[in-house]
């Protein structure tokens, strides 16, 4: 038997696709390496000529500047790396809160587009069109101006129940930490366990008998009751650290600065308009027959939404929703424009003080890259959980 295989191709000829591919890749690598070398060489030469020092050793030197707000005490004698840490926590604080608020608001607005009430539909539509067509930076600036110019001075702050709203920001009462709160936390733990166990039992009962018990409200009630019981055992403290009008400013209580409020409001309201569109698209993508089939089976409106529409819509919603979360986190960098001390703003100050542009900008990029990749991984994991289980 003679072999019918075609004659072996000459691997070193221009006619071989593999060979051509190899050449192209070698050229690409050489070109990119050349560009990188060129830039690095220029940078090093320039730094030598201008006498710019390089390296990350400045991180352990004293920062020499104060930061307007931070989650933990910081003063100018502490080193740069702690200043950066304050910046990162400030960024994360505004991003996480913004993501939660924007999701809630965006979902409401997106679902509102399907309302039977024309006024609700119209309001949701006009909100979305108005807020997503104006640059987020402009919105941040506008909120900041409104918060710092329209609001009264802190001596004439608006009093909304226990809240004080003024040019100085929002002041609110915080509970005084005592044994009662600790006991409430102790009560929460067995409550969570008990609630979880009850839910497992209810689900099993439902699968066995078909009788649907309360699977959400009762477990939540158990958790709540357990922590209230713990709180009562601890002496039921009701003491609050309430803010009051001092001579110059509002004293005591918790406070949110106008910078933080402006960034939070701007990011939330802007991103909510995009999330609303994502949610609307997701719900619209579920086939019409699904809802009709659900009502034919006798499910009520809430069950239809929760058990039939949302699980299918979520698959369409999650990937673009992840993008919106990442966008919000990246947009929080605009806080630098109104002086909220986020990581970009701290890096900017550090850059101006030390002149180490390369290092400071790399730190900022690294922080955002790792947050972006972290969020993307988390959402991909959730996405794979909610994807269709195919054979």
């Amino acid at each position, binding site marked *: 038997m003679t072999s019918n295989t075609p004659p072996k191709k000459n691997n070193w000829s221009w006619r071989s696709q593999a060979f051509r*591919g190899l050449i*192209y*890749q070698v050229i*690409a*690598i050489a070109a*990119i390496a050349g560009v990188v070398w060129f*830039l690095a060489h*220029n*940078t090093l*030469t*320039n*730094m030598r*000529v201008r006498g710019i020092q390089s390296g990350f050793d400045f991180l352990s030197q004293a920062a020499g500047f104060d930061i307007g707000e931070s989650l933990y005490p910081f003063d100018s004698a502490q080193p740069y790396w702690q200043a950066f840490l304050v910046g990162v926590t400030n960024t994360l604080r505004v991003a996480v809160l913004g993501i939660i608020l924007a999701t809630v608001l965006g979902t409401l607005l997106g679902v509102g587009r399907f*309302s*039977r*009430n*024309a*006024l*609700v539909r119209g*309001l949701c539509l006009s909100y979305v*069109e*108005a807020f*997503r*067509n*104006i*640059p*987020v*930076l*402009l919105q941040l*600036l*506008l909120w900041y*101006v*409104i918060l710092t*110019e*329209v609001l009264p001075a802190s001596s004439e702050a608006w009093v909304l129940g226990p809240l004080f709203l003024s040019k100085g920001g929002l002041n609110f009462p915080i509970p005084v930490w005592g044994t009662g709160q600790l006991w409430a936390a102790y009560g929460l733990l067995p409550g969570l366990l008990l609630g979880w166990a009850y839910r497992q039992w209810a689900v099993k009962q439902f699968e066995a008998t078909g009788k649907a018990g309360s699977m959400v409200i009762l477990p939540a009630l158990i958790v709540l009751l357990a922590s209230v019981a713990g709180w009562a055992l601890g002496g039921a403290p009701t003491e609050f650290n309430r803010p009051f009008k001092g001579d110059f400013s509002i004293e005591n209580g918790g406070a949110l600065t106008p910078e933080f409020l402006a960034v939070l409001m701007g990011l939330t309201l802007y991103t909510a308009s995009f999330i609303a569109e994502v949610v609307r698209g997701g719900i619209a993508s579920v086939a019409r027959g699904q809802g009709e089939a659900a009502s034919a089976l006798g499910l009520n409106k809430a069950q239809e939404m929760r058990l039939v529409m949302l699980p299918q819509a979520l698959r369409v919603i999650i990937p673009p929703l992840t993008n919106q979360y*990442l966008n919000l986190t*990246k*947009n929080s*960098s*605009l806080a*630098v*424009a109104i002086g909220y001390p986020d990581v*970009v703003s701290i890096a*900017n100050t550090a*850059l101006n003080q030390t002149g180490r*542009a*390369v290092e400071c*900008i790399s730190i*900022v*990029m690294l922080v*955002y*890259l790792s947050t*972006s*990749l972290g969020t993307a991984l988390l959402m991909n994991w959730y996405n794979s959980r909610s994807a269709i289980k195919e054979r």
Partner: protein
Amino acid sequence: MSNTMNTSVFKPIAPRPAPVNTEGPVAWVRANLLADWKTTLATLLIGGVLLWLVPQLLNWGVFKAVWIPNFDACRAEGAGACWGVIVEKYRIIIFGRYPFDEQWRPLVATALLIGLLVLSCMRMAWKAWLPLVWLVVFTVFFTLMHGNTLGLSQVDTDRWGGLPLTILLASVSLVLSFPIALLVALGRRSNLPAIRSFCTIYVELIRGVPLISVLFMASFMFPLFMPPGVKIDVLLRVLVGITLFAAAYSAEVIRGGLQAVPKGQIEAAATLGLSYWQTQRKIVLPQALAMVVPGIMNNFISTFKDTSLVTIVSLYELTGAMSLALNSDADWRPFTIEGYIFIALIYFVFCFSMSRYSHWVETQVNKSKLR
């Protein structure tokens, strides 16, 4: 018999009206505002809030507003919005620091550029001569803005600002980023591992960082990258930054379009003996690019909004020019809100009309699928 036949002519009875009125404004109100008690309650609540809010807003913005450029009138007790600030400062807000006497030049240049953008949106202009028109208009734009020829005085780029700068940044970065995005998108789907990983790293790196860090890089690090003695204009550096940034986002949109082309198309092309570039140019791209037009359009809208960030690296586009106009003048400074509302309206008009256009393109593109 015959008599009766002659006299009885068929007279149709007029159709009875529908038992429940299903048409007309009354029925619409009944179905959309007063369907059941929940809807009615919502209507009453929202209607009440609107009735309380809208007159106040109208009072502030229209009836009690001050339209003359007189800040004493604006500060008067009970005065509403001070639109006089716009009347007084609109030239600085729209044209930034451009020399006052020469501002007809950015006006003409911007009008040309807007005209070009509108022309490019029309179906009759989707011809081979369009790129040539773009080239001509950009040449005229730069000649007019920069001057130093034809008897025009020279105006350096650091004095350019306002709306011309915003539109310039957005449209130039769109045009320049498209070819880069196309190549990167093709590269990400290439079989060659080195090229594929370079393209992936580029896209993920850029999409993982905020635009502002790219702009900081363009303004602080770029001068270090160049050989000693080479100075590059700050406008050009920022333009490069925005272009590279926009390219990464457009590349992802184009990649989505490429993935949507069925594999059989590429296999059929290979069967016919087409080379890689022939396959891409004649088979894949015509199908993919038609699908990605709305996505590219959305990217253009976000780039348009993102140009507002260059104000942070001291280029006075619309947002920056507005702060410049009011912050330097203590008399008008208290009316920053009116100024922001004015430029917000400008942005809104541009972005809203572009998103409407994007919708229209989408229906045009989908027409072939709705047979």
